[in-house]
């Protein structure tokens, strides 16, 4: 089994009232920020983050150090740091723990990052539902300001760094970085066309770096250990460090764990999450949030060619491939947010799929026709299938709709809908065929109305 690592990101979670400065400062909070701001250059810090090979923790896995390198502010342009705490991808619940249990780590990371990229202001955009986490962050920011770590002359250096919390108000799409920027500017959360990318023209038309909470919270450890040493924690090339793994669904011990990059899904389920609930067989696992195509443990990696990136795992189950951004891409899925949803053999995959597609229908911002209409059509067809109104060619229709959504919209939401839809059909086709013939039995069917709007007083 995997040996649990020495905790880094989570090292202060166990401290009593770990959200208070007085309790975490003796455990090292702001030590790195003080050292970084008073003795190191921004270039040095950026170099450490680059060497750390930290792949963005929000889902896309873009190297954070490379992203920071895209900044090239012109004369009179102000750089902004925006921290994406709009954690809403179904199955994902990791960033909330940082904000609830160690908000000072996030603020310390923000201070170092602001100093490194030359941003005087950071906004933390938190989804509106997390009112409690927002409260914790606000209190922690006030403490840090009172201690002289934020505001004018943080740690006495000749700069100003402000960190503000900005509350969203309920919209998954605001996790898409350009939608987030629109929302931050007081607009509807509709994604923007790229280019220009945020590093060139972001919030308020200024160069902006958008990073996930976990990415920024890792910065103090990266700076303290040095980029190379931090990177070496991971087990995969070009994908460094340790990260938070979430696991939910049918396991005995669902929750959040910190482990090196590159453990396998089987390790996560068996060695961390206590194995399958009721010792039932594992049927399927959605590896990193609902937009990542499902894994089927029956399937074997087929990579006989020696130069295939997955050749080392040829003939092994999909769930024995190390969890990394590049390995999972080669596997035809995505690592995403690294928070898995585990399903046992009682789950009907058509129904599970319908549950998720309802999510996308509800959350599509409606800007682009293929996405606005496509998500609705997918739900309609799946509704027909589960209610026994399906036809044999409905499978082709689902594939056709998905293919017409992919790549035809402003943002990646439609791709994030179509990819898991296609993955479900590819891997559990027999269940869709079955549903087209006979529907899904009543006891297995779940949720028949999507209604999160108010319909007036009863």
């Amino acid at each position, binding site marked *: 089994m995997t040996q649990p690592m020495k905790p880094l990101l*989570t090292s202060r*979670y166990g401290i009593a009232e770990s959200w208070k400065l007085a309790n975490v400062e003796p455990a090292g909070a702001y030590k790195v920020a003080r050292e970084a701001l008073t003795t190191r250059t921004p270039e040095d810090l950026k170099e450490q983050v680059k060497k750390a090979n930290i792949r*963005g923790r*929000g889902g*896309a896995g*873009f190297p*954070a150090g490379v992203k920071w390198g895209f900044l090239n502010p012109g004369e009179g342009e102000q750089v902004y740091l925006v921290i994406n*705490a709009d*954690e*809403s*991808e179904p*199955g*994902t619940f990791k*960033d909330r723990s940082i904000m*609830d*249990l160690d908000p000072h780590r996030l603020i310390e990371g923000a201070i170092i990052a602001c100093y490194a990229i030359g941003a005087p202001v950071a906004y933390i955009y938190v989804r509106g*539902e997390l009112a*409690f986490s927002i409260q914790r962050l606000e209190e922690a920011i006030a403490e840090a300001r009172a201690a002289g770590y934020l505001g004018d002359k943080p740690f006495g250096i000749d700069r100003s760094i402000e960190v503000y919390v900005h*509350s969203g*108000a309920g*919209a998954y*799409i*605001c*996790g*898409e970085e350009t939608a987030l920027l629109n929302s931050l500017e*007081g607009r*509807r*959360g509709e*994604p923007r066309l790229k280019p220009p990318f945020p590093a060139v023209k972001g919030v308020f038309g200024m160069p902006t770096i*958008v990073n996930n909470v976990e990415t920024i919270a890792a910065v103090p450890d990266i700076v303290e250990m040095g980029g190379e040493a931090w990177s070496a924690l991971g087990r995969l090339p070009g994908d460094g460090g340790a990260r938070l793994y*979430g696991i*939910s*669904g049918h396991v005995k*011990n669902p*929750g959040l764990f910190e482990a090196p990059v590159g453990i396998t899904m089987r390790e996560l389920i*068996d*060695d*961390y999450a206590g194995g399958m609930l009721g010792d039932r067989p*594992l049927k399927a696992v959605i590896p990193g*949030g*609902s937009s990542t195509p499902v894994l089927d*443990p*029956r*399937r*074997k990696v*087929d990579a006989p060619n020696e130069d295939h990136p997955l050749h080392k795992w040829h003939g092994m189950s999909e769930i024995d491939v190390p969890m990394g951004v590049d390995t999972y891409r*080669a596997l*035809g899925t995505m690592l*995403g947010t690294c*928070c898995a*949803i585990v399903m046992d053999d009682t*789950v009907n995959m058509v129904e599970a799929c319908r549950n998720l597609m309802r999510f996308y229908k509800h*959350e599509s911002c409606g800007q682009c026709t293929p996405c606005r209409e496509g998500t609705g059509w997918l739900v309609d067809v799946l509704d027909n299938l589960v209610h026994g109104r399906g036809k044999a060619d409905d499978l082709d229709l689902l594939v056709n709709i998905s293919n017409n959504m992919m*790549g035809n919209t402003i943002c990646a939401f439609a*791709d*994030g809908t179509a*990819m898991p839809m296609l993955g479900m059909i590819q891997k559990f086709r027999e269940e869709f065929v079955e549903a087209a013939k006979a529907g899904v039995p009543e006891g297995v069917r779940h949720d028949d109305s999507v*209604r*999160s709007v*108010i319909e007036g007083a009863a």
Partner: protein
Amino acid sequence: MGFLLSPERETQVDQILTRYPERRAALLPVLWICQRQNGWISPEVMDYVAERIGVSTAVVKGVVTFYTMFFDEPVGENVVWVCRTLSCDLRGGKSIQEHLEKKLGCTAGHTSSDGKFTLLKAECLAACGQAPMVQINDYYYEDLDVEQLDRIIDAHATQGAEAAAAEFSTHARFGSPQPSQGAPKTSAPPPPSDEAVRLASQPPPAAETNSGGGEDA
């Protein structure tokens, strides 16, 4: 009668306006402040916010209707959001919802006849490891079964929201690894006929895939 914010909240708005280089960026925070005072975003509130921020009422309405947490109709004293998305569904979210409908005497999307509770379905609330869960007003209540849910709802009805939250609400938790002991390991079900499935020869399109959920692209 126009809508007016309390003097303390006006000060809060003034303070928030200093955080942004553009006034309009304060739109969401100001709407939140108004909703906390008024309970919902009435047409009068929209007029007030438009005036205060310096945009048209149409702009405000466009924003209010985009976000699920801004109510453009009155709601009950407490708003109960029950998560319906997959992780909660796998752990019995449906029974939580059905129990709430029975207990409150209204279906999702409606307000109980005593005006105390509005029941709404929510999409994933980022608490999947502690599923099933509900959000009531500003707080999360996790790892629920119907008995616990009864206690929580009753506490809201009898002691008020703050007292109920102090007693029952939950925040994020961190797990310790629990290796499966002696129990069967993740045994895969029997393989399908086409055992070896060829990998996609192309990586998935778009380096930046999904949106939402803390995107990092």
